[in-house]
């Protein structure tokens, strides 16, 4: 609204309100914005982050039959960011016919959360109807992170032998064919909302490539490892998921590949996220302008 049209007294009160808005109004606006955009999202353009693109390019450059090890330890509490990353990663690997094995840490329930997701994606067009036990394996839940990681590095087969699918140990399935050491895996991808990645930095041998998909919070402490070359790439937060999805779209445009599903929560969450953050920036700017105005008119103490 334009202040010039308002009488002196009212203008002041307007700035005073802006200076100290009751937080509940902010909350209400946030809820409204997010609700609308979650129900019917609008598509926002994307500029891929180089770090995420590096990881995507490396993985999409793999040959059919290559093996990738995935360590996924996200739970419901970081679902918003991690799930999108996870789905995009699985899609890419399935379309490239890359074998993968997943082990989870942190929460015994995770295998129950991710299995339906993977099976769902396997049904999609372009996923080469992947089967558990032939194309991919879920090594299940490992309570002790430290033991698990060093176990994988030292003797991958022994570490996951316990887990059985259709009566036989997963290491006897085609998934682990020709995989005797972790260095036979083309890459280890860690999808996490916690600092489990740090152990990998310490333990993993130079030969094995390491990729990371993490929450935005963790970007600060992990980007250095990308720069120093310890990570082939790093997908950060919902943006990272969105990057992966748009890169999938670039490689397999939906209009040319009917039935291909490239976009999920990454793009879905991007528009509400964008406008929520805009609200935050707007609120901050408003607060400062109001403060300046009050200072100017000497009402600020």
């Amino acid at each position, binding site marked *: 609204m334009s202040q010039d049209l308002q009488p002196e007294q009212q203008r002041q009160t307007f700035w005073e309100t802006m200076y100290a808005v009751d937080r*509940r109004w902010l*909350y209400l606006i*946030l*809820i409204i914005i*997010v*609700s609308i955009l*979650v*129900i*019917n999202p609008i598509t926002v353009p994307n500029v891929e982050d180089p770090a995420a693109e590096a990881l995507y390019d490396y993985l999409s450059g793999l040959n059919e039959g290559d093996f990738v090890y995935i360590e996924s330890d996200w739970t419901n*509490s*970081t*679902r*918003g*960011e991690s*799930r999108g990353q996870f789905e995009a990663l699985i899609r890419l690997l399935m379309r490239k016919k890359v074998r993968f094995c997943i082990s989870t840490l942190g929460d015994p329930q995770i295998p129950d959360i991710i299995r339906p997701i993977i099976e769902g994606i396997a049904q999609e067009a372009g996923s080469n109807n992947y089967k558990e036990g032939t194309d991919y394996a879920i090594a299940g839940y490992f*309570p002790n992170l430290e033991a698990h990681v060093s176990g994988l590095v030292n003797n991958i087969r022994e570490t996951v032998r316990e887990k059985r699918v259709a009566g036989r140990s997963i290491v006897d399935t085609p998934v682990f064919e020709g995989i005797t050491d972790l260095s036979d895996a083309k890459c280890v991808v860690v999808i996490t909302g916690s600092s489990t990645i740090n152990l990998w930095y310490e333990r993993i041998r130079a030969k094995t490539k390491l990729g990371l998909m993490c*929450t*935005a*919070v963790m*970007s*600060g402490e992990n980007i250095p490892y990308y720069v120093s070359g310890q990570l082939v790439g790093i997908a950060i*937060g*919902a*943006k990272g998921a969105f990057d992966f999805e748009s890169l999938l779209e670039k490689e397999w445009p939906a209009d040319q590949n009917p039935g291909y599903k490239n976009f*999920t*929560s990454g793009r*879905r*969450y991007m528009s*509400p*996220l964008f406008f*929520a*953050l805009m609200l*935050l920036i707007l609120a901050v700017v408003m607060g400062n302008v109001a403060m300046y105005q009050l200072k100017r008119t000497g009402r600020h103490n």
Partner: protein
Amino acid sequence: MLAQSVFTPEWWQELFSPDGRWLENSLLRITIGAILTLGLYSLLYRENKFYRFTEHVFVGLATGFSVVALVKEVLWPQWWVPMLGVPEREATPDVSAVPAVEAAWLWGALLPVACLAFFVFSKKHGWLSRIPLGIIVGLWAGQQLNAFQNRFLPQVADQARPIIPLGETSPAMAVNNLIVVITWIVVLSYFVYSFEQKSKFLQRTSLMGRWLLMVGFGAIFGTTMMTRFVLFIDRAYYLLIQWLRLGEQL
């Protein structure tokens, strides 16, 4: 408006006439979770009875779960089983084999020591509780040398990157590397307490250190905001799409 949404009778039918037994009715289960979620969100307006109810449910469940975890992840596998051991069992067609565990009966001696902690409630023998507590904190203290060496020395060594723009070091890299080390030193100098900062220079660096620290904090703030908003958006998706089905699912 989508079919199956909360505004259609189908939704309510599904909610109240479950296919199969009520525990398997996924909509009902989501509804339970959604109501609890709303209970916690009501705190945003003000503390109220609905929130208080949810809070107490939450704390009750959480504490209960800690007890369960204590039994099945600590006491049973780490104390009871090692103490009494397990006799070997061969595999049968439908049951996998159980390897034998030797009985280290000496674990029994641990129980009274742990129980000393409960003297904390006694006036006369309160000091006895300090023995188990002391052992725990002592073990923690002993680990710190190793922890310090493994965590911080690599960081310090990592700070030092070449600052001579020759070989593979580009001028830009050299400058950045110099900035890194200077930043590190200046910030660290802010955390020197016992030296009187009389000289203007020291005071300036210390102030500078505070400002650089704020850069670091600002960066954390920026990266964190994103994650937190996405979390809320995900919850909104859970409430509006998965529960009320107001939009198409992913």
